[in-house]
């Protein structure tokens, strides 16, 4: 049964395709106007961020408020790449970040192998090693990038502009995701040793630190094109409904395959009972880090997509108050339910930005944010486990393998304990 693609996968992919085509058709026919189009795209982007958070919180049990910071990192790094390409016709951003992502990523993997052989590893010391490696390699990448960029410029410029931009865009989104993932690895390494609520607060701190850095991106960080608090303009608006759906489906498939593999079960076991998981040979620290990095990867991807929706980035979008939004969505949809998360993301965007805007009578525009928390409150009181609890649609549902054919097991038959009959 593992060999063939099962019915639920076909149904899911078909359904996703159908959903994409229907919405795309409605967009093309202008039935769904730019207003709804934007909201749907934002909903999709939020779904990706929230799936990442659901992995971290819902499946691995780590209370993280840092998702928004990684989202910001993905958004700004991807935007910087495409900005340099479209405005300066230069690939230096692309090349340098690509080199950083690759070199630092490789060094992390290599160092991880090396360091994991050390008994009783101290997280902070390990962090220092990784940090030094990351800083060194980043500096090297910048130098190296200057050499490599010009020939690649020529190469890309030879392509039709649309194709080149698309290539740069896809790479930018992926690099944004990977960069967020690597930063999350460095940050998570020491911080993941903290107990649950303390971890949440430290990650909230991360979001705030990222926001402050973005506020000063042009002065302290030296990226003048990001323009700090003036907001970054000139990013090509290439994130179409297609790309949102493409990445959403990709993330869904990855998440589903991950969760339904041995790795996924190990991740969940950490949430269920850390001590029992350790006793069963699960390297709890490794799986916490892995999940955190994966969740942040998704956040970074989503950030890259978001940057190219409106073509404008402002640090205020990454304010810590908004960092609760993915958490609200995840809890609202149901912890541990990917279906719920996706549904809640779209519902959140459609209700808050869509219906409430349209339905509230004029003069009551400000009531949007009075109604929203009330809705939230009522929903939480009525369904404290979220809208979907742990319900999953068929594709995401764990399939129970069929029972093995009974082989003859004479010894075991005799002593098999019957169910307590009293």
């Amino acid at each position, binding site marked *: 049964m593992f060999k063939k693609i099962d019915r639920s996968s076909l149904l899911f992919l078909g359904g996703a395709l159908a959903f994409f085509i229907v919405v795309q058709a409605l967009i093309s026919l202008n*039935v769904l106007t*730019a207003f709804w189009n934007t909201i749907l795209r934002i909903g999709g982007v939020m779904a990706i961020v929230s799936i990442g958070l659901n992995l971290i919180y819902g499946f691995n049990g780590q209370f993280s408020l840092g998702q928004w910071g990684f989202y910001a990192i993905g958004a700004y790094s991807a935007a910087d790449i495409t900005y340099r390409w479209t405005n300066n016709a230069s690939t230096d951003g692309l090349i340098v970040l690509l080199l950083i992502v690759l070199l630092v990523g490789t060094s992390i993997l290599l160092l991880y192998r090396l360091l994991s052989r050390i008994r009783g590893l101290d997280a902070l010391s390990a962090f220092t090693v990784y940090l030094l490696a990351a800083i060194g390699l980043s500096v090297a990448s910048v130098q190296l990038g200057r050499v490599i960029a010009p020939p690649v410029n020529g190469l890309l410029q030879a392509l039709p502009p649309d194709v080149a931009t698309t290539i740069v865009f896809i790479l930018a989104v992926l690099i944004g995701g990977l960069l967020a993932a690597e930063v999350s690895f460095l940050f998570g390494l020491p911080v993941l040793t903290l107990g649950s609520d303390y971890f949440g607060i430290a990650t909230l701190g991360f979001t705030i630190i990222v926001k402050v850095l973005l506020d000063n991106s042009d002065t302290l960080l030296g990226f003048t094109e990001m323009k700090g*608090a003036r*907001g970054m*303009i000139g990013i090509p608006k290439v994130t179409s409904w297609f790309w949102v759906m493409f990445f959403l489906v990709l993330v869904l498939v990855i998440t589903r395959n991950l969760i339904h593999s041995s790795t996924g079960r190990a991740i969940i076991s950490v949430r269920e009972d850390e001590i029992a998981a350790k006793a069963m040979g699960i390297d709890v620290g490794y799986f916490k880090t892995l999940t955190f990095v994966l969740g942040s990867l998704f956040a970074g991807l989503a950030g890259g997509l978001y940057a190219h929706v*409106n073509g404008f980035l402002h640090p205020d979008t990454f304010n810590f108050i908004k960092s609760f939004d993915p958490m609200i969505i995840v809890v609202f949809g149901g912890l541990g339910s990917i279906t719920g998360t996706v549904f809640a993301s779209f519902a959140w965007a459609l209700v808050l930005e869509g219906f409430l805007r349209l339905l509230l009578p004029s003069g009551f*525009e*400000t009531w949007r944010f009075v109604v929203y928390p009330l809705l939230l409150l009522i929903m939480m009181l009525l369904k404290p486990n979220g809208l*979907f609890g742990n319900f999953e649609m068929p594709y995401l549902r764990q399939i129970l393998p069929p029972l093995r054919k009974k082989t003859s097991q004479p010894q075991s038959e005799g002593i098999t304990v019957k169910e307590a009959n009293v």
Partner: protein
Amino acid sequence: MKTRVAIFVLLIVALLVTACQPGAAGGGTIKIAILAPLSGPVPTFGVSTRDGALLAIEEANAKGGVLGKKIEAIVADSQCTPDPAVNAMNKVIEQDKVHYVVGEVCSKASIPISEIAEKNKVVMISPTSTNPTVTLNADGSTKKYVFRACFIDPFQGTVMAKFALSKGYKTAFILFDQGNDYVRGLAEFFEKAFTENGGQIVGKETYTAQDTDFSAILTKVAESKAEVLFVPDYYNIVNLVGAQAKEKGVTAVMMGGDGWDSADLDKNAANGGFFSNHYSPEDTRPIVQQWVANYQKKYNSVPDALATLGYDATNLLIAAIEKAGVDDPTKVAEAMEKLEYEAVSGKVTFDAQHNPIKSAVVLAVKDGKVSFAASVAP
């Protein structure tokens, strides 16, 4: 399970129904959308702007509307934040089918929506967004459909620098909000003009919009013995800075920009300070007196800079429509470029980058009153 399916279906149906709802036919009226941050961090700015704009529309309607049609105001909340602003802009363009937009207040919201305006050929006039890129494309060309009703930063910063020097002050300390481009712009151009003309900046400090405790930096100001403290922020920050400056022994004269202009400016805290503005309420021009009186009658408070600019922006728009003679955004935009209009904030024409050319005044805060101090031509 069933309920979930039901909810899902309901949402889809609702989406389709609302989406397919045709925007109300625009036959009998001309619609003007007002995008203002009614919620979010600074609703107070949004409320003022909206009130000013609504008053302009009301007055125009009282005079029979424009092109013989009534004007219909559509208010949308844009939260001074990019995403909601984009949604609000899309909503008024797509659902309400407006051709003219007054807004947004904050540059960070105005920039993304100006691109939508340009793409959809909708005339947009921002009452207060000072960032140059609001009216400019990425390549430096001017956006055809986007205008603004306020000074851009260089002008006010320069005005105040010159004014400070003319008063004989030689040293200044600048406080500005790193996260607010309006404040930052004013601060930068003040510094430039002040030092170029012989003054000296003895210190610069930043804060964030959420800060309330300025004790650390005000202690530094007191220590620096600067003669002028330039705080080009909105009145709420000025109130806090002014109140604490006195406790910290700061003797410098406070100066700032049009952000100070508000009925809520703490005249006690800002006592002895000066700020640049678009007009003086003491101005005897009838349009100014009429405006102040009408506003006071309707909203029971003195109009602030935001209300005034909201009023002016709307009037400029109406005048341009009138001048164009047709309800056609392209024509209106062309008419606007050549417009010459007597607004509350002075006689306005637009330069090549769609920024208004108008004169500024400097107002003094003294003994609980705001009074005219000087007039500066562009």
